[in-house]
């Protein structure tokens, strides 16, 4: 069984506004002088309350799109699900293996060629020679990068980079696929193929969670939507209904809702 269950997740993170906040010696001087030297940390560090009590439960077959303005907490929530960010409080329960695509350039080594990258990731995840060859075949077919795969990734255009990262992230065995805003709306051809591939990737009833600002992409990939506003879930339900309410800016739960199970969207919570 595959499951994502978040219970009352609260997450704050610091933003270091100036270089001073990164200085070890300034910190030591402050500490040693009992706060006399140097400015207060609060002057240089802003704490962002990114998630303020998120509870949700996703089950097999859920394809969920996160909707919301910039800074609403979409990326942070994806990073919590992916296990990158560790929230200050709350419970994260995951059954199944998570594979994620949060940052297009992060998962590849730009100094390596496409082929070397694929082979390296295959090795990292313990695939044997035959499985790595199959992975290479799979990635080559999907990306259609051809001879570009033999060039260092730093020579790729951003579109080519997305294709490679997307192919790699979806090729690895994963039950829960977490995608941040990486699939540009422009390349319709790629989108069609990406959807085909995503469909293939979750034939075993997997969970997909993705964030996007594009209505087209969201209704293309997702069955359900979750609307985030300032770190709270203000609405959820079938994707088209949530998108409609989002367009009108009329959330069902302006104060935030406590427990979200998108597959039970008709039940009052």
């Amino acid at each position, binding site marked *: 069984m595959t499951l994502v269950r978040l219970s009352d997740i609260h997450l704050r993170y610091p933003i270091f506004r100036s270089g001073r906040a990164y200085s070890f010696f300034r910190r030591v001087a402050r500490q040693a002088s009992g706060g006399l030297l140097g400015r207060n940390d609060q002057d240089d560090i802003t704490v962002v309350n990114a998630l303020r009590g998120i509870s949700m439960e996703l089950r097999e077959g859920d394809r969920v799109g996160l909707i919301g303005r910039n800074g609403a907490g979409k990326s942070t929530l994806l990073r919590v699900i992916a296990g990158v960010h560790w929230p200050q409080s709350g419970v994260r329960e995951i059954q199944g293996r998570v594979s994620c695509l*949060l940052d297009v350039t992060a998962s590849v080594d730009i100094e390596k060629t496409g082929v070397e990258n694929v082979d390296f990731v295959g090795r990292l*995840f313990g695939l044997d020679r035959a499985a790595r060859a199959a992975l290479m075949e799979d990635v080559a077919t999907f990306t259609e990068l051809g001879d570009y795969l033999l060039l260092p990734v730093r020579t790729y255009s951003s579109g080519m980079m997305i294709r490679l990262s997307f192919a790699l992230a979806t090729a690895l065995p994963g*039950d829960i696929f977490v995608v941040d805003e990486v699939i540009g709306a422009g390349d319709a051809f790629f989108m069609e193929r990406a959807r085909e591939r995503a469909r293939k990737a979750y034939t075993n009833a997997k969970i997909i969670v993705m964030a996007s600002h594009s209505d087209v992409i969201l209704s293309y990939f997702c069955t359900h939507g979750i609307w985030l506003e300032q770190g709270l879930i203000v609405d959820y339900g079938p994707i088209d209904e949530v998108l409609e309410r989002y367009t009108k800016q009329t959330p069902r739960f302006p104060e935030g809702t406590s427990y979200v199970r998108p597959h039970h969207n008709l039940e009052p919570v």
Partner: protein
Amino acid sequence: MENLSGTYKIMGGTALALRDLSRGVRDIHAWSLLAWDDVVARYRRTLLGPLWITLSHGIFVGALAIAFSVIFGQELASYFVYLAAGITIWLLISNTLMDGPHIFVRARGLLFSYDLPASIHVLRTVLSHIISFAHHMLIYVAALFLVANVVNINTLWAIPGFAVLVLAIIGWSTILAILGARYRDLMPAIAAATQMMFLLTPIFWERANLQQHDWFALVNPLYHLIEVVRRPLLGQAPEPLTWAVTIAIAVVLNCTAVALFAWKRRHLSYWL
């Protein structure tokens, strides 16, 4: 690569950090692969490949040996072996000190892309420096054959000595990796301090040169960390004081490292 299927919860960040450590240590496959990849990346654009590391090190040691044997008026043969052993060990120490603060910063991509433990990046970096160290050691071995063979039964002490040194290195690499992720001005300070310590530690000069100021070497922890491997390589057993100091350093550093990692692991992703 451990399969992560199964239920796990984020509750205590400390418990999860310790889980990260134990998963990381056990994932030998991942960190050895990454370490080798680091080494390959280091010589990717060189003509001689891995031999380049050895050759450049050999030229460095040879030039220094000839220059200082003239300056200090020492016998070249024994001084060459002393230098080949000492500088090689020093290079391992200084490289790991200077690379430490970069460990998590450099691993950001992998940390944000795959569900791999963060601790593998410490072990991977340490191992990659040990692989380079092994290449450098060829110069010492060549010196044994070509210049003076000083190996005897005492040389076996190098094995436990090296083990203690590596433990200490893992300790400071972990600590520096965490501090380096949070504070970005650590690296230049460490580079400057390391360069100074190269001059203040008996590496290209000998402790005997200090004469009545012997204490100057004995209070230097880096001296003991070098000696615990260098003495055996020169055919002598390390002093009891050296064992005591190095083992104490390894224990204290690793306890500090585990405590710091358990305390700060949960903040790591916000700093990068």
